């Protein structure tokens, strides 16, 4: 029966639906094909990722060996910011700021969501392309422009934005307060405004496509969890990104046109400024109204990818499909009402702190449900340890480790003392940084054959994962301790505090792990770029997966399916279904006569 089902789509390679000539420019540059746009997002994201991670290695070196001279600093940062190879304190803050901005927005939002939403939404729901291919193209090119502007800001004379990725005014508003708040900050704001426009276009496209273009039989409860998470992520993005845009615009007004939305009663560089009546706390509210949902914008797609990859490689249905959907919805809803936990000690009314503690700790419940469901998915599975599967298991592991410390940070009482220390850095890097990166890597290893028609080398993948896994824990686990010792984040060095002298050895260890982990990403880059050209040719469905993208031919064509779009008859997780002899039944295989649905 299901062998027949396999043959079903192979026969149809006789005609291309959209038959028009592609020039180099329309095929590779201004493409409106979602698969090409996905690859553009991915390559841009990887490029930004290299820069973002390299920056973190630079400032980690400064933290481990404070104010020591390194030739590489001088080469990369120039004489102004690293005279004699010693990193200056203002460029340290700039590196921290741009590292955060690039990793959060350009790599883990655009690079992750942009790549996989674009690639998988049409392929997995059975659509020929996005609802608006043109808008999709504009979305990518706006992202590209914003990335270029962000990179340009690295080269302005006074240095790039350096008020932290959260750009709290007044620091970000006043060039007198920090040099990076001059032209560098202007470019940062312009870049982010364009980025938000890009992100909104992408998100609207994803939402409309998922709602309208599902193939026959693809009801919402037959969508793979990837699509559910992309869909919900897009909704959160549409709700929260405009708020950041308004915050950015108001900040531009304050900076350039003398308004006082966020500034009041300021005396700096020997003079009183005219601002009156504004409040930096207002900015914090606006910023975190995006900023907190943003971490879910980053992690939800990773969760979707991991759920899908785990089910495929465990040869088992994802445990609790409906519970997974419900928990994604619950997380999405709660994520918009917890932003205040970044502001317990911002000076807002402590009563609000109580409310946000309550909502924040609630979010642990759907998160726990997800974690337990993943673990149960592994139970009595037939686990195929492809590199994508390793990264998925790694993602669950770091998500749990990082998520648990959220119980401390989300509790206003405990946050008082660990707020803005390295404890926070350890927490969020594990729970959303590393976890989302693992999700992204898992996605790349899993869908590389779909993107490039070739396979990634698995042995390099294994080495990449295990070294990364050890180094990630090596970097962020000890960081909890220096946070609990009370060491504030964003300190150029802690040598001015003999109190913290005993933390220096830990800092050296962390940096060593970071350097090794960073260096081993080169293996991935080599694997990725060489496999595009020389990788083993992929077969149509290398992982024996049930979802629709594996029914398309290996060669990319416009419109995805050569013949008719397949219809869908079952949910996406019919792995090892006892009614069938093979261990996977694709979604486009009709139900056997009298076959019972074995799940909720």
């Amino acid at each position, binding site marked *: 029966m299901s062998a027949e089902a396999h043959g079903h789509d192979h026969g149809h390679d006789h005609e291309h639906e959209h038959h028009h000539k592609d020039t180099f420019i329309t095929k590779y540059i201004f493409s409106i094909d979602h698969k090409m746009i996905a690859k553009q997002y991915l390559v841009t994201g990887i490029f930004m990722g290299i820069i973002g991670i390299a920056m973190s290695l630079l400032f980690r070196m400064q933290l481990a060996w404070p104010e020591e001279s390194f030739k590489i600093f001088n080469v990369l940062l120039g004489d102004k910011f690293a005279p004699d190879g010693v990193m200056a304190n203002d460029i340290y803050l700039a590196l921290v700021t741009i590292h955060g901005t690039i990793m959060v927005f350009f790599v883990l939002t655009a690079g992750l969501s942009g790549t996989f939403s674009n690639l998988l939404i049409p392929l997995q729901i059975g659509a020929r392309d996005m609802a608006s291919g043109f808008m999709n193209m504009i979305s990518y090119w706006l992202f590209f422009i914003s990335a270029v502007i962000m990179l340009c800001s690295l080269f302005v004379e006074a240095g790039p934005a350096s008020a932290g990725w959260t750009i709290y005014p007044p620091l970000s508003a006043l060039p007198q307060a920090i040099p990076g708040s001059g032209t560098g900050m202007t470019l940062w704001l312009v870049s982010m405004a364009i980025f938000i426009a890009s992100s909104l276009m992408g998100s609207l496209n994803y939402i409309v496509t998922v709602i309208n273009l599902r193939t026959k039989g693809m009801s919402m409860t037959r969508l793979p969890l990837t699509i559910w998470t992309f869909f919900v992520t897009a909704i959160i993005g549409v709700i929260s990104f405009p708020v950041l845009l308004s915050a950015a615009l108001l900040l531009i007004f304050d900076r350039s046109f003398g308004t006082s939305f966020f500034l009041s009663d300021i005396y700096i560089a020997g003079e009183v400024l005219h601002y009156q009546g504004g409040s930096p706390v207002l900015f914090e509210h606006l910023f975190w109204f995006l900023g907190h949902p943003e971490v879910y914008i980053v992690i939800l797609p990773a969760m979707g990818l991991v759920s899908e990859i785990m089910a495929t490689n465990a040869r088992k249905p994802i445990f609790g499909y409906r519970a997974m959907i419900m928990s994604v919805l619950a997380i999405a809803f709660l994520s918009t009402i917890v932003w205040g936990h970044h502001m317990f000690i911002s000076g807002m009314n402590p009563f609000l702190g109580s409310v946000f503690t309550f909502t924040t700790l609630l979010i642990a419940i759907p998160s726990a*449900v997800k974690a337990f469901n993943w673990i149960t998915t592994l139970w009595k599975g037939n686990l195929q340890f492809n590199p994508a599967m390793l990264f998925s298991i790694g993602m669950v592991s770091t998500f749990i480790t990082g998520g648990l410390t959220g119980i401390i940070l989300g509790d206003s009482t405990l946050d008082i003392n660990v707020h803005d220390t390295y404890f926070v850095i350890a927490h969020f890097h594990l729970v959303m940084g590393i976890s989302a990166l693992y999700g992204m890597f898992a996605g790349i290893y899993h869908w590389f054959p779909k993107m490039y028609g070739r396979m990634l080398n698995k042995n390099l993948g294994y080495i990449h994962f295990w070294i990364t896994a050890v180094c990630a824990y090596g970097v962020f686990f000890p960081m909890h301790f220096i946070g609990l010792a009370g060491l504030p984040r964003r300190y150029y060095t802690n040598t001015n505090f003999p109190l913290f002298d005993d933390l220096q050895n830990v800092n050296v260890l962390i940096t060593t792990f970071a350097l090794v982990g960073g260096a081993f990403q080169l293996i991935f880059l080599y694997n990725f770029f060489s496999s595009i050209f020389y990788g083993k040719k992929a077969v149509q469905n290398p992982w024996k997966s049930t979802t629709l993208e594996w029914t398309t031919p290996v060669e990319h064509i416009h419109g995805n399916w050569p013949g008719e779009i397949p219809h869908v008859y079952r949910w996406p997780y019919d792995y090892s279904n006892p009614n069938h002899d093979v261990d996977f039944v694709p979604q486009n295989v009709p139900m056997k006569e009298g076959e019972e649905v074995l799940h909720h």
Partner: protein
Amino acid sequence: MTSLLVIVVLVLLAVALWQLTRIFDLTQVGASSDDSQVASDNDNNVQGYVMFGFLAFIYIFTIYGLLKWGNLALHTPASEHGLLVDNLMNITWVLIFVVQFITQGLLYWFSFKNRGNKDKKALFFADSNKLEALWSIIPSVVLACLILYGLYAWNNIMFVDKDEDVIEIELYAQQFKWTARYAGEDNVLGKANVRLIEGINTLGVDMSDKNSADDIVVSELHIPKGKKVHFKMRSQDVLHSAYFPHFRAQMNCVPGMVTEFAFVPTYTTAEYRELPFMIEKVANINKLRAENSVKLVAEGGTALDPYTFDYLLLCNKICGASHYNMQMKVVVDTPEDYKKWLSEKTTLAQDIKAAKASEKPAEAVKGTSDSTIKDTVNAVVDTVAAAIAKVAMK
């Protein structure tokens, strides 16, 4: 030296990498020379064992970390409410370790146990309402307890009763320095605004307010043991955060508004220095400093001073290039010493009077230099405006 180290590390890494590739290659032998790049049974087996090894790594690394770095964490709280905070923290830690131990154990154990092979078929187990209810309800109950305890503590810490007997102190933040203002005899701080900053009145205290007369401005914070200190915080330029790690106290300083935090210190500086954990910590730090000093002296530098413990107030909100060096010494005195220390300080009103008396002759000179700058600026602005007007006319 460092570069040599880097080279050695790189070489070792290369060797390690080569060895690893070899190991993975060797495991392929016999598994038919298939190069599909899809995991074979052999891969599953090897990776399954590595999974198990990684679980051991996590456990061992956690235990190693706790033993080696556990004592770096802040110890005995030096404030009354700190006990409450640390108590909740410890309960939370126990919970976290239990959950972490179990979930990571299950995750990697299942991975190891269920490593795949061709002859196996996975169990079709799509859902179970009972299980899902179980792990929705248990976290809910546990979290409810944590939330209740947390909110109880939070309300205790953050709200100061109006009729409570407290000492009012203003903490004033600016790039990159802390200043404190004591309310004086009347225990009421005079009004202040940055627009009133002038000369040595660097905090912009409104001297026409009758409560300002007895205010005292100092650059080292002294507080008495056993008495509630109510801090009112201001900032003159950007956001800062007043962070007292040993007192488990922190609050942002926000330009344009007054924020507050109150706590009761429970150990004088002298007492805190004598706590056993602190003696050990300081000895360790001094050992490290002595080692560094040897190195420094060998390179022609000066040796580091030995360290004695003091409470500190740090800035914990990025505030500019020298954010990493914004600190103030905090001294907890016995109530008698505190009274004595405070009585030796002059009030702001006296300071201003003294400054005026000594600076009168200099004032005139300063005034002219100020106005010259202003004039120059005005002239430049005028020229630019005229130029713009000209262009606009054309």
